[in-house]
């Protein structure tokens, strides 16, 4: 079976599991909407549109980062239940296909949350971007992929640790700092229109390429560690 078909088989399974349980999406949606509402009450962004534009990028990505944690842990919890992961290890198919399939599934889940979140965010924070809005169509997928590719990898890495819910953010946050900086700066630049976000988009793209390659290459070792 070729690699692409293996990835698609894993992806289809993860989508099917999520469709039946809706664990990841419901948890993320609830969390991000809560963050948006709470912060809009705390800061009253409609009274200070300039400040709202300056902080919205950061708020959006931090909310997504924290929300993604729940989905990332959840996606591997399904594999650990009933020892399905052992069955995966014994399948004569590339281990990294499991990782890529799961990362793609997580990308779809987080993107679905973004689709719901973006208009709510724009309304609550009265946002009118002053930069090139279409660039958000590049920044959002690149930023989301940076979160999910590392998150999926490190969630798998922390599977065998005792407090995996705690371990994932501890490992993921420091390693995501460059990407987080890129996402926030690029988004803020689009919203405020002060600076060109191109450099930060390039940083995000480079980060995605480097970490996707590293994660794909190292996943087999992670999966088959005793």
């Amino acid at each position, binding site marked *: 079976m070729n690699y692409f078909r293996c990835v698609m*088989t894993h992806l289809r399974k993860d989508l099917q599991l999520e469709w039946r349980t809706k664990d990841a999406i419901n948890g993320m949606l609830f969390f991000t909407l809560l963050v948006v509402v709470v912060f809009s009450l705390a800061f009253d962004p409609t009274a200070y549109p300039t400040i709202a534009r300056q902080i919205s990028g950061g708020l959006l990505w931090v909310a997504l980062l924290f929300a993604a944690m729940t989905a990332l842990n959840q996606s591997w919890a*399904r594999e650990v239940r009933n020892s399905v992961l052992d069955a995966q290890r014994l*399948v004569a198919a590339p281990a990294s296909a499991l990782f890529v399939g799961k990362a793609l599934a997580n990308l779809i889940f987080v993107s679905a949350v973004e689709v719901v979140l973006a208009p709510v965010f724009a309304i609550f924070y009265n946002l009118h971007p002053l930069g090139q809005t279409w660039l958000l169509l590049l920044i959002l997928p690149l930023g989301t992929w940076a979160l999910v590719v590392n998150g999926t990898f490190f969630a798998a890495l922390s599977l065998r640790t005792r407090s995996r819910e705690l371990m994932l953010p501890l490992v993921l946050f420091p390693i995501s700092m460059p990407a987080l900086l890129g996402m926030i700066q690029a988004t803020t630049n689009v919203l405020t229109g002060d600076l060109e976000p191109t450099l930060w988009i390039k940083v995000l793209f480079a980060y995605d390429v480097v970490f996707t390659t590293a994660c794909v290459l190292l996943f087999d070792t992670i999966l*088959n560690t005793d």
Partner: protein
Amino acid sequence: MSIAITSAIELHRVSRVYGSFAALRNVSLTVPAGASVVVVGENGAGKSTLLRLLAGLVSPSYGTVTLFGGAAREQVDRLAYMSHETMLYDELTGVENLRYFAALQGVRAERVEEALHSVGLDPAIPRRVGEYSQGMRQRASLARVLLTQPDLLLLDEPFSNLDVASARHMVELLQAYVAGRNGDGLPRTLLLTTHQHELARPLAEMTLTLQAGQVVSLEGAGVTH
């Protein structure tokens, strides 16, 4: 000159240590291809560890494990392992689970129905595995390992949770499988652990007894330790 590989399993002075606890101690064993071995022993005797070592899910702390003349990890396409747990997704039906594993392993789709029928499960059951009874879960799990028609079957407590009639049916099925009577006619090697020795007697061409991680007896022909 070619050398025919006649042994399916070879363990040479194998130990597996977890922290300060030795689950297996200095085990040497040779099982010929086509043999059927029942492993017995008390809880904690090392039965499950032995099977996980053979499946390549854990590495030996000391010693070497060889399957069909090669390293265990390189033989994943020739073996199948069934553990205490179902190794299936609770949220999918039995047929969906098996289709998923069949697709990954390049097994033709018809094998899914064949495997489910062989263990006495109706592929049309709309219930998810999480809603199955314990016995049905056990049978679905067995169907998963039979999907690829592996040369080596490693079964950990396959009869637990089964009523006597279902367990007997499973024994008959395994007897036929090992003898090569269902499928392509090739004899297969079987290693299973059980606490229900009487039930597994028809499969016990050889009986290996483990105690505190060591082989204490081996009865039957062909197996050496």
